[in-house]
């Protein structure tokens, strides 16, 4: 409805501005901006109002139904009251169905419905009237000299500011909640035991009197596991991704490139679960039988299998981005090198890659972040055993996998086991953040030198 009003006011204001133009009056802003200015007023404020209404609707309904609760219900515990209230609220538009079941009397139902509908009507009318009033007021402000363009721009600027603030605040909120839960965790488990502990077995007892009720929360095995698998994955993805990027950007004909690049990118679009069972059912056993063949004992669930598959999964992260930056290296540099009698390979090695290095580095770091955060493949292919080892042939586990297993299953929300998930999450976040900052520093230093 207010959209319609907004559009309507847009056309009216634009028409009027066009009229000025037809009369050869020197209009200061384009007619479109006149239209936009009025319609923004007619639309935006009511729009925010509606959002406000929706936000407080629950509270209001709560307040509305309170007098209609039966004595019986009130005498019950607070949980039941909540339950009944919610039931009423959810069915408020067809309360009549509930009369038969004796949940609410007919008189009560009618008056509740009436109140509810009145309030809806009032808020609706309020919004419409506000919209009309605002558009009228702003319409009156229009004139030949009126600088609508600048006004519209500042309104839009304000809107964008609000949106970006929302995004930033959400992020900050998430981080803060992570930090607070982590602090709670550290009130139960020592900081050093967590960060430097080498033993991970988060089994806390369900009953106090159970044996071994306090688990140990040493995170080192998890992080070495993550590191190990990431290293394996990168040793696959970095060379394969880089070489395919070099091929795509320097050697392939445009047609081949247009054909191959999307195919490579599909690799990134395959659900990780699929990679997971591929790793668990195909690669894992294959790695083991290979190992046996040359006389090595390999666990069915091995870091190697998970890392290999993960490496394949993140190839496109390396190749696609590196290809983009290498293609973006000016042709004049390539030609300059070729004209000096360099072969194509020499040109790639000595000119193209150095020039594209910042992009390549960030591509690699992006791939690393992706590998660190990956969960599914590891759950399925690398196992859950928190071994502290550097041997890629044994089963390991990673931070993300443990977060999942910590939170799956019945646990009190504030047990050390659950809170450990937040602590792990925070550490993971800090690590990826550090990686990103590191990447940024490299890129910036490089830029300063060469731009």
């Amino acid at each position, binding site marked *: 409805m207010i959209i319609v009003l907004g559009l309507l006011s847009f056309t009216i204001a634009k028409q009027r501005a066009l009229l000025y133009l037809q009369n050869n009056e020197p209009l200061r802003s384009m007619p479109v901006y006149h239209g936009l200015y009025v319609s923004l007023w007619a639309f935006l404020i009511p729009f925010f109002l509606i959002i406000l209404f929706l936000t407080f609707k629950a509270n209001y309904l709560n307040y509305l139904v309170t007098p209609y609760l039966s004595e019986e219900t009130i005498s019950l515990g607070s949980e039941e009251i909540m339950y009944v209230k919610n039931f009423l609220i959810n069915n408020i538009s067809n309360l009549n169905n509930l009369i038969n079941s004796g949940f609410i009397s007919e008189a009560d139902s009618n008056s509740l419905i009436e109140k509810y509908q009145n309030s809806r009507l009032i808020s609706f009318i309020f919004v419409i009237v506000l919209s009309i009033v605002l558009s009228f007021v702003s319409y009156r402000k229009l004139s030949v000299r009126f600088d609508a363009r600048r006004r519209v721009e500042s309104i839009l600027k304000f809107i964008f500011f609000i949106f970006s603030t929302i995004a930033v605040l959400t992020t900050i909120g998430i981080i803060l909640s992570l930090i607070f839960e982590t602090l709670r965790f550290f009130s139960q488990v020592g900081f050093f035991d967590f960060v430097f502990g080498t033993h991970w077995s988060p089994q806390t007892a369900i009953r106090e009197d159970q044996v071994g009720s306090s688990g140990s929360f040493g995170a080192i095995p998890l992080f070495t596991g993550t590191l190990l698998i990431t290293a394996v994955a990168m040793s696959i993805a970095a060379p394969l991704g880089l070489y395919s990027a070099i091929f795509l950007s320097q050697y392939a*004909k*445009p047609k081949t490139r247009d054909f191959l690049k999307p195919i490579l990118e599909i690799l990134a679009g395959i659900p990780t679960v699929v990679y997971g069972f591929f790793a668990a059912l195909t690669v894992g056993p294959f790695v083991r039988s290979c190992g046996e063949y040359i006389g090595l004992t390999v666990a069915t669930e091995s870091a190697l299998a998970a890392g290999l598959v993960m490496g394949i999964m993140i190839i496109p992260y390396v190749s696609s981005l590196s290809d983009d930056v290498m293609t973006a290296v*000016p042709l*004049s*540099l*390539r*030609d*300059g*090198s*070729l*004209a*000096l*009698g*360099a*072969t194509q390979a*020499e040109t790639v090695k*000595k*000119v193209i890659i*150095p*020039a594209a290095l910042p992009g390549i580095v960030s591509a690699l770091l992006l791939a690393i972040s992706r590998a660190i955060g990956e969960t599914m493949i590891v759950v399925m292919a690398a196992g859950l055993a928190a071994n502290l080892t550097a041997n890629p042939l044994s089963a390991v586990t990673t931070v993300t996998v443990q977060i999942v297993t910590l939170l799956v299953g019945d646990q009190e929300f504030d047990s050390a086991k659950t809170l450990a998930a937040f602590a792990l999450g925070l550490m993971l976040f800090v690590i990826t953040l550090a990686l990103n900052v590191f990447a940024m520093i490299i890129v910036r230093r490089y830029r300063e*030198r*060469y*731009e």
Partner: protein
Amino acid sequence: MDKELENNNIIENKALIECKNVDVFYANQQALFGINLNIGEKEVTSLIGPSGCGKSTFLRCINRMNDVIDICRVEGSIKISNEDIYHPDIDVVELRSRIGMVFQKPNPFPKSVYDNVAYGPKLHGRILHKDDLDEKVEKSLERAGLWSEVKDRLSEPGTSLSGGQQQRLCIARAIAIDPSIILMDEPCSALDPIATAKIEELIDELKDNFTITIVTHSMQQAARVSQRTAFFHLGKLIEVGDTEKIFRSPDHEQTEAYVTGRYG
């Protein structure tokens, strides 16, 4: 037929580059039509003509940089020192290492000034000792008239120099591979008059040791730096001759119109 005669008239017996019936196609579009042009040794030849007439295309034929463009096809014969450079046995990389090229826009590599100049010599492995390389870099920069300006900034990135310095750096880079021929495609189009003057001076000095072919849009520049001038129009070579003659009393009306500025 009579055009060919004319060209033949001006052929000097010591032509270094001989082009016969060179046709160039971009996909199905023909860009050059039967070019017969001989370029003399140790002199400056300038190529002039309206935009899009194929000067750059012709220049790129000489060091086979057209090979880099997928859709480009070159026909006819081009000989350098009586050797057909489009013969299948010719090693393109080796050919290019004998020909320096300077591009329209300065394109220093994102490396230090020193490494920019040392790039070619290192590549061809002709210089193995660090001292010799230092000397080579210094000499090349000196010949490009840049040494005094950058001798304290050798480790700074080449891209941090001014536009004119960058272009002279590119010239130094081209000289450093000891080419016998230097091709320049509008080397001054991005430069101010002072930098331009410096480069023109430089070209004048270089012609004692190198065969230089330069594309330019400036008549004055062609008149100042070149001994011979070739006028291209719509992919055809209209006229070639001593610079003085081309600018004073060209045989063709079109040439006259162009050099006197009556042409668009």
